[in-house]
């Protein structure tokens, strides 16, 4: 009887465990990143050359291409970004500030966007660079988008001599 009982119970005891596979999870979140910087720091000075002879107009504006836009951008699939520019403050009457961005240069990688045509800045945002995806430009004043500033006389009779200070605001934003 004991022999029979053992024979009946043993298979049941033998089959009480068993797992062919086991799982764990892994994951990482890569966040959306939008960073923009102008390098090097400091302001830009532009001026017109005074005429040397009565009756002549102002000389052409000086230009400045010392500034670079550095960006880091990480976007969700299908998202693109743009860099807009606008004036903050009051620009001198009769004068327009012109800015253009050269194609991206230096180190970095990715989809860093394409500059559009030169802009005459106003107090409203205008697109300077578009089509930015995931990418980075590298840092400092040899990487990214080189900016060129100059002044343009729009309305001669509004010109008043003096020193004027205003800011240009660049924004990296989703399209």
């Amino acid at each position, binding site marked *: 009887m004991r022999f029979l009982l053992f024979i009946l119970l043993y298979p049941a005891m033998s089959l009480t465990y068993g797992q062919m596979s086991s799982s764990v999870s892994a994951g990482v979140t890569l966040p959306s990143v939008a960073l923009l910087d102008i390098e090097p720091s400091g302001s830009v000075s532009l001026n017109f050359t005074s005429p040397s002879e009565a009756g002549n107009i102002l000389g052409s504006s000086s230009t400045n291409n010392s500034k670079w836009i550095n*960006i880091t951008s990480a976007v969700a699939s299908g998202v693109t970004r743009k860099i807009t520019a606008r004036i903050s403050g009051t620009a001198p009457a009769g004068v327009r500030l012109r800015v253009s961005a050269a194609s991206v240069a230096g180190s970095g990688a990715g989809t860093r966007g394409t500059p559009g045509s030169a802009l005459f800045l106003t107090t409203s945002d205008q697109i300077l660079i578009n089509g930015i995806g995931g990418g980075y430009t590298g840092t400092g004043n040899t990487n990214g988008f080189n900016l060129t500033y100059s002044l343009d006389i729009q309305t001669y009779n509004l010109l008043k001599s003096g020193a004027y200070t205003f800011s240009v605001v660049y924004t990296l934003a989703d399209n």
Partner: protein
Amino acid sequence: MKLKPEILKWIILALILTFCNALRAQSISASGSWTPSVTAITEAGNNYASSTLESAANQTLISVSMPPQDLLFIISFANNYQVWVKRTDSGPNWNTAGLQLFVKRTGSGTGGGTSLLLVPSAINNGLTYQQITTSDVQFFDGYNFGNSTRSGIPIQYQITGVSVLVPAATYSTTITYTLVDN
């Protein structure tokens, strides 16, 4: 020749025991998930400081049990096994996005039993990083003796390809370890 009933009874018992041992299912257990964070970029123009994330050396611990290969609990034979690994993504595909997930074994764990002649169990391979794909690939192998479990096998992970060029998203996957009786 006619066997005595008593002898015949014990022969039947031996056959049943052997058969039942063979029926015992193998078992694998893995515990310890991994969800690392990337270090925030603090300066425009930079990418992530490192394109690689690495887990603790014992991020996951695996235990492996095999059905005993023995004769009436007296003589244990090595029972060979293989552990295979694969991943199942939920959400964006890691490889399409440019991320790769790697795994390696950083130790042997403990246990696994010994033979009657005190030959210890063994665990082999899997000590260098190998990519976890969406298909099963062989990870490591070994053999146990008797009912012993080899437990606490430490597993480490690595994610490569971390970059702002990779679409921003949460990348999640399930890593499945499968035990194969070899």
